[in-house]
């Protein structure tokens, strides 16, 4: 059952993912955290951090990790979890692959059309919105601490957030370096 669900969910995530890995995050979050509860908000944020610092596309990384974790949480042994991880990863790929090959065929012959330009003209701004939603939904008590219960953690989290935002946007600090830096701060301060 869990395997069927993984296959269904990640096939869906694969086919509705326009605009690359980051745009995929709000889709993954919606299904994996909100609907199926395979991961907590914390776990989801952690896996994004891990994906950022390991090779490969972020969507595959998320799928592999979620597949493994979901199957383990469901009480299966490790070999089944490995199977779940591979299944989830391949589920993300197969539908876009078929579509991509058909489109390649078509585009090699015909080039771009006005209709596709119209559709993508409104899809692109939507993707910016998806990204914004993913970021907003992660600004939660789980990730930042609560201002009333743990004011110190909350304040420091906000400072780290601003520092990371300004550092990567304005000073073009590499994301991986940023993650390492913030991890070091956490280790030393908390």
């Amino acid at each position, binding site marked *: 059952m869990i395997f069927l669900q993984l296959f269904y969910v990640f096939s869906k995530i694969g086919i509705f993912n326009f605009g690359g890995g980051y745009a995929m995050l709000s889709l993954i979050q919606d299904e994996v955290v909100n609907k199926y509860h395979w991961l907590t908000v914390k776990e989801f944020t952690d896996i994004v951090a891990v994906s950022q610092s390991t090779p490969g596309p972020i969507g595959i990384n998320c799928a592999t990790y979620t597949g493994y974790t979901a199957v383990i949480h469901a009480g299966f042994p490790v070999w089944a979890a490995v199977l779940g991880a*591979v299944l989830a990863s391949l589920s993300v790929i197969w539908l876009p692959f078929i579509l991509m090959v058909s489109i390649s065929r078509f585009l090699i012959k015909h080039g771009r059309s006005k209709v596709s330009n119209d559709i993508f003209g409104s899809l692109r701004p939507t993707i910016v919105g998806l990204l914004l939603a993913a970021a907003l939904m992660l600004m939660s008590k789980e*990730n930042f601490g609560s201002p009333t219960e743990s004011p110190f953690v909350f304040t420091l989290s906000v400072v780290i957030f601003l520092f990371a935002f300004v550092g990567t946007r304005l000073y073009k600090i590499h994301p991986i370096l940023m993650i390492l830096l913030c991890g070091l701060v956490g280790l030393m*301060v908390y």
Partner: protein
Amino acid sequence: MGICTEMFLTFAKIGSFTLGGGYAMVQIMEKEVVDKKHWLDKEEFMDTLVVAQSTPGLFAIDMASHIGFKLRGVKGGIVGALAVALPSIISILLIAMFFQSFKNNIYVEKIFMGVRPCVVALILAPCFSMAKKAKLNKYNWWIPLVCALLIVALGVSPIWCILAAGVGGFIYGQLTK
């Protein structure tokens, strides 16, 4: 060495050496596929980029399957796509196994307490560069805002936003013809 083996090795290499996702891969891919192997010329590579950007699915996987398909048909496409994905699947599997036993470790938790706000910033940051690429202007600036509001405040699935945007764009195009 057959072309499929060569392609597998090249794309596996591209998959293992790109940190931080799809777009970081483009430069490395161009170097390998265009400059070194001469599988595509520069213009073909740019065309492939546009196709990969405008179709669903992971950018890097799309690129690899398109290039593989161009060289050796469906079989080539499968080899390319799997080769890019494989290093990522293996490395995350190892981490997932490791992480399950270490995530309750106090030091790991401390590190991630620092990392989590940083990740949120890293997700928010490309919003602005993407807004530029998406050609946001005074006519369509509301689209991302409404879409984010629907998802966050009303719990609408992002899938509906994508579908609505596609259909909306199509209808708008027909009306303004």
